[in-house]
């Protein structure tokens, strides 16, 4: 319960007075997972799930019930792990579902899971949403939740419900109640206008954070998702900035003679790791945010860039051409013991450590093609998940199961995509304009 309250405070600025309260309905049920999707294996057979509109006690509640069900269904469908059963096949009427599902009639249409929800506008104007996830074959409730919130929060409620379903079925944290920051692009390539933009992971609630008057690149979330660190050419000088999403304020991280770029927060959020160019040479530095003290981590006459901390903060993966061409290296967080981990054909770039710690995602360039791939932190087990004329810049879903990246076809516009760690279920993430440099919001705390 506490989690959700915290999340909302972190997440949605206008919602300070509208905290959705999530409560278990009807106690807890012993969790014997008969219904389970193993998302670690290769091609997955999606789980057939029935998701009728949520039942509403009046016209407004009915509209919300329909909208919430649609958002939950879209989340589940996009994950590639669920197959929504056509509603025309439903036998049991929605009104009687509230009492208790007639399981035989759901078994008959091969639904394995059933989501039953209701929406209610309370006398105080608050929206109450309840839902239950049923195992149709066992006739057993798997999850039951209730939320009370302002009705304008209905989308977040839907994502929270989708997360609960995903978690109960897969055993993994859901990633639907998250956001994405990216660079929205417009105009001709020679004078490209780039703006920071933020949206829910499903593309809703899209808004621009910067005006486009300055070139901006490579935004990345802080661990609280309240701040973004990125590169901005303010006054013609490329430097690392921090942007506060709540206040819209931005601040340059220090004033160095050369360019600072390729920033990322540390897992604690107290440091920013980045590259700094001095006299034509780029090395990796880390800035302690409370003291603004800067420490050098690499000192090599090659290009060292794209640093990313391991989730425990003890190691850093980065990109260097010290071996002659771009490869991926791992070092201790104080810069010690750098070791090359990529040895395949081609150039390796943009390494990003998974929030689970088990994998490093990267961009690979070989034989005129770009790839998004993953490897273990010791360099073993390389797998390529997506390819294109240009694909670049992977970012992890908070549960470490999905990657988002951008793809630009030859002569075309860049767009955002996601792909499962299995390499299946590639999806375009629709944005109002061309988009690049996506960053998925971090794991919830």
């Amino acid at each position, binding site marked *: 319960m506490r989690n959700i309250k915290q999340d909302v405070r972190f997440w949605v600025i206008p919602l300070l007075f509208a905290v959705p309260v999530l409560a278990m309905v009807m106690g807890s049920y012993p969790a014997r997972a008969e219904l389970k999707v193993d998302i670690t294996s290769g091609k997955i057979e999606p789980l057939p799930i029935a998701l009728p509109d949520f039942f509403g006690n009046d016209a407004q509640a009915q509209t919300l019930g329909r909208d919430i069900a649609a958002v939950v269904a879209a989340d589940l469908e996009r994950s590639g792990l669920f197959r929504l059963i056509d509603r025309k096949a439903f036998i049991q009427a929605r009104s009687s579902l509230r009492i208790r599902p007639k399981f035989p009639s759901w078994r008959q249409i091969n639904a394995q899971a059933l989501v039953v929800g209701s929406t209610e506008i309370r006398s105080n104007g608050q929206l109450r949403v309840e839902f239950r996830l049923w195992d149709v074959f066992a006739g057993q409730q798997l999850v039951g939740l209730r939320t009370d919130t302002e009705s304008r929060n209905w989308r977040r409620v839907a994502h929270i419900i989708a997360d609960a379903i995903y978690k109960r079925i897969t055993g993994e944290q859901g990633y639907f109640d998250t956001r994405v920051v990216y660079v929205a692009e417009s105009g001709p390539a020679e004078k490209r206008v780039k703006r920071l933009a933020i949206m829910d992971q499903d593309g809703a609630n899209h808004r621009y954070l910067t005006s486009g008057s300055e070139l901006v690149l490579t935004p990345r979330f802080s661990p609280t998702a309240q701040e973004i660190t990125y590169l901005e050419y303010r006054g013609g000088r490329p430097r690392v900035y921090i942007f506060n999403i709540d206040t819209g304020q931005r601040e340059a991280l220090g004033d160095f003679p050369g360019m600072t770029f390729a920033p990322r927060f540390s897992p604690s959020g107290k440091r920013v790791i980045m*590259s700094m160019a001095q006299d034509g040479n780029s090395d990796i530095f880390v800035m302690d945010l409370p003291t603004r003290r800067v420490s050098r981590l690499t000192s090599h006459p090659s290009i060292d860039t*794209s640093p990313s901390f391991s989730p425990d903060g003890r190691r850093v993966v980065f990109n260097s051409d010290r071996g002659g061409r771009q490869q991926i290296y791992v070092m201790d967080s104080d810069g010690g013991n750098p070791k090359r981990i990529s040895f395949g054909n081609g150039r390796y770039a943009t390494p990003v450590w998974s929030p689970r710690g088990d994998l490093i995602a990267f961009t690979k360039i070989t034989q005129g093609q770009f790839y998004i791939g993953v490897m273990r932190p010791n360099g073993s087990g390389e797998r390529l998940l997506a390819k294109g004329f240009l694909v670049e*810049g992977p970012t992890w879903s908070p549960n470490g199961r999905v990657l988002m990246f951008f793809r630009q076809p030859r002569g075309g516009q860049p767009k955002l995509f996601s792909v499962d760690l299995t390499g299946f279920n590639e999806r375009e993430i629709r944005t109002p304009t061309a988009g690049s440099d996506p960053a998925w919001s971090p794991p919830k705390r």
Partner: protein
Amino acid sequence: MHRKILVTVIAGLALGACETTSDNAGSAQGSGSAAGSGSSSGGSGGSSPQVSSLAPGGVPAGSQEDLVTNIGDRVFFGLDSVSLSAEARATLEKQAQWLRRNQGVVITVSGHADERGTREYNLALGDRRATAVRDYLVALGLDQNRVKTVSFGKERPVDARSNQDAWSKNRRSVTTVN
């Protein structure tokens, strides 16, 4: 502070500049006598107009147009390379002479990469290219304080096409009069 203010007083001069921008003389040798350093001798009278001397091609000496038309504002790099070719060095030697003639001019050298690399690496590569050009100009006698560098990585192509021809044009440094 170092910035040189060029005011073209006669409309005809500006017109002349427009007409002849395509006239790439490439005769930097001859420009020495004509260009001089932008002499601004105030005339008599109340509003003493500033007068700029003209470089070949009818462009104001020491201007960006002068640099582009008579010297060449850019040099090109090989794939993934930051080394200066003989052709690049020749252009930069002409730039250095031109900067000696136009002492008030302060420049920015921007470094660029083609689209076939990753964004952050290309920013570093662009920085290397711009710095290589700056260092060469300084080695030829340019005061460090008259040159700044900036990298745009792959953010500002001159040729938006996705082919070898475009990529070789985009792997460049550009010298800009501030």
